[in-house]
């Protein structure tokens, strides 16, 4: 693979096939990529520095802006870290409502990533209908929390406000409609489409040892057959009171990851139904006195939850002051977006680079922070 036969391409920040504002500069020979180099940092806003300037409660508004696809995951992780260090126990109903919001966020994120995957291989009709189905969920969020995408709802110590009964009913109706009309449509359009299968089967294969060694989590590792899901391994919120199984794939390629995402949507739907069925009533959040003066006792905690893309971790250190001393965010696509590009991309074809990026769900704001 001599050097002069290769040309360099910036699959760079300004490119339609790239998921978000992030660049891979790879040089290729013939049709296969020879070596690739991630060029991240376009979305770096210095969150951790900003968090050290703001008091504890104020950070909830800042935290949900870290990852654009799933704002609730960040709020939830921050709230859990806050409660872990101060070891507060939040009321039962708040736990249930938090799990409902997280599952809705997971469905919305999966629909968005299915749409993105289809966009990468040219099936624009599916990305249109995928985003349309996601939009109805955003209306639900607007109904519950007031915000379409950024809903500052999971406050440390519970949830901002209660959900009324007719909103529950509306959630149930939207989910039924999603399951009855939307998902069969996707099946015909995407999953039974022979050309699509040809484009996804054994592309961007991630073997089991490599996934474990890289620290990849989420659908990528479940596609290789290991049923690892933080909701099962370290149950948080109300996940221990709900029974659901974790879908797994077999040979860890783009196709398995997509099928897993599709099954997880169904799993989330029946989780939400179980949650809404037996939700206890009671107070919705812990009153922490005057939020502005609340001091978290000194200590540190690493808290992790299962986002649609994998394990999302917060390492929070507090020295007992009014402001957090240090917050380190571990995005779920960190290993894939940075190391994965260097290790996995050489050898794939050019047309499969966007398919690789979308199917492994590279979300650039997570590792730029």
């Amino acid at each position, binding site marked *: 693979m001599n050097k002069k036969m290769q040309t360099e391409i910036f699959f*760079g920040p*300004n490119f*339609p096939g790239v998921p978000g*504002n992030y660049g891979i500069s790879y040089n290729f020979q013939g049709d296969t990529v020879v070596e690739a180099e991630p060029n991240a*940092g376009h979305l770096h806003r210095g969150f951790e520095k900003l968090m050290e300037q703001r008091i504890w409660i104020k950070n909830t508004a800042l935290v949900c802006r870290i990852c654009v696809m799933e704002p609730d995951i960040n709020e939830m992780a921050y709230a859990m870290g806050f409660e872990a260090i101060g070891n507060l126990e939040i009321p039962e109903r708040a736990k249930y409502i938090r799990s409902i919001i997280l599952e809705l966020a997971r469905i919305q994120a999966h629909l968005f990533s299915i749409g993105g995957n289809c966009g990468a291989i040219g099936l624009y009709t599916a*990305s249109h209908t995928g985003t*349309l189905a996601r939009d109805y969920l955003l209306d639900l969020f607007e109904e519950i929390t007031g915000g379409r995408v*950024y809903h500052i709802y999971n406050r440390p110590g519970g949830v901002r406000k209660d959900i009324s009964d007719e909103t529950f009913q509306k959630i149930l109706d939207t989910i039924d409609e999603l399951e009855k009309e939307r998902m069969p449509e996707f099946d015909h359009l995407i999953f039974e489409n022979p050309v699509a299968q040809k484009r996804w089967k054994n592309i961007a294969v991630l073997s089991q040892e490599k996934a474990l060694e890289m620290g990849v989590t989420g659908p990528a590792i479940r596609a290789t057959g290991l049923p690892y899901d933080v909701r099962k391994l370290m149950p948080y919120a109300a996940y221990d009171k709900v029974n659901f199984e974790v879908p797994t794939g077999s040979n860890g390629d783009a196709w398995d990851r997509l099928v897993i995402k599709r099954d997880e949507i169904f799993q989330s739907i029946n989780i939400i139904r179980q949650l809404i069925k037996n939700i206890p009533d009671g107070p919705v959040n812990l009153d922490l006195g005057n939020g502005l003066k609340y001091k978290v006792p000194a200590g540190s905690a690493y808290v992790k939850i299962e986002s649609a893309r994998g394990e999302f971790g917060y390492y929070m250190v507090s020295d007992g002051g009014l402001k957090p001393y240090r917050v380190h965010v571990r995005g779920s696509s960190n290993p894939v977006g940075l190391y994965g590009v260097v290790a996995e991309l050489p050898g794939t074809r050019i047309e499969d680079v966007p398919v690789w990026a979308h199917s492994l769900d590279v979300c650039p704001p997570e590792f730029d922070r």
Partner: protein
Amino acid sequence: MDGTYKRGSWEEVMDWFRKRSLWMLHYCTGCGAIELPPTMTSRYDMGRFGISPMATPRQADLLLVTGYLSTKTLRRLIYTYEQMQDPKFVIGFGSCAINGGMYWDSYNTIKQLDKYLPVDLYIAGCMPRPEAILDGFLELRDRIESGKADGYKKYKKNFEYYQKNQEAVLGEVQRTQ
């Protein structure tokens, strides 16, 4: 905006066409990009106004700065802006382009967009809703019609002003032709 300059009738006809088919550059710089797919797709369809995403700066004539801008992206945005063809318009999304928004004290984001690029239109909202984006597009169409959207002429006129600001933040910026 130095008001509507004297325009020949040929210019007006051309503006009528420019208004009808705005080609948007498919480059999501900041967090506002999550609201673009819903605007493009079936629910809040912007295709019916003739606005469709284009892949390369050569063909696009509408540049969306969606949300905040880190200095690294600013450098690439200037290259993209200079590659675009002449009647080009820039829309700034959200409060981060106006005065730094929520990241006012972040060391890596720029605070005012119009010190580096001539901006024709701002859309308010920390991540404006799809309806707000559509309303912004329609407002831009009226501005094109009335000839007020002449950011690109301003960029040519006081190029040194923009260049001085860009150099101040980025250091040396390589110029395309």
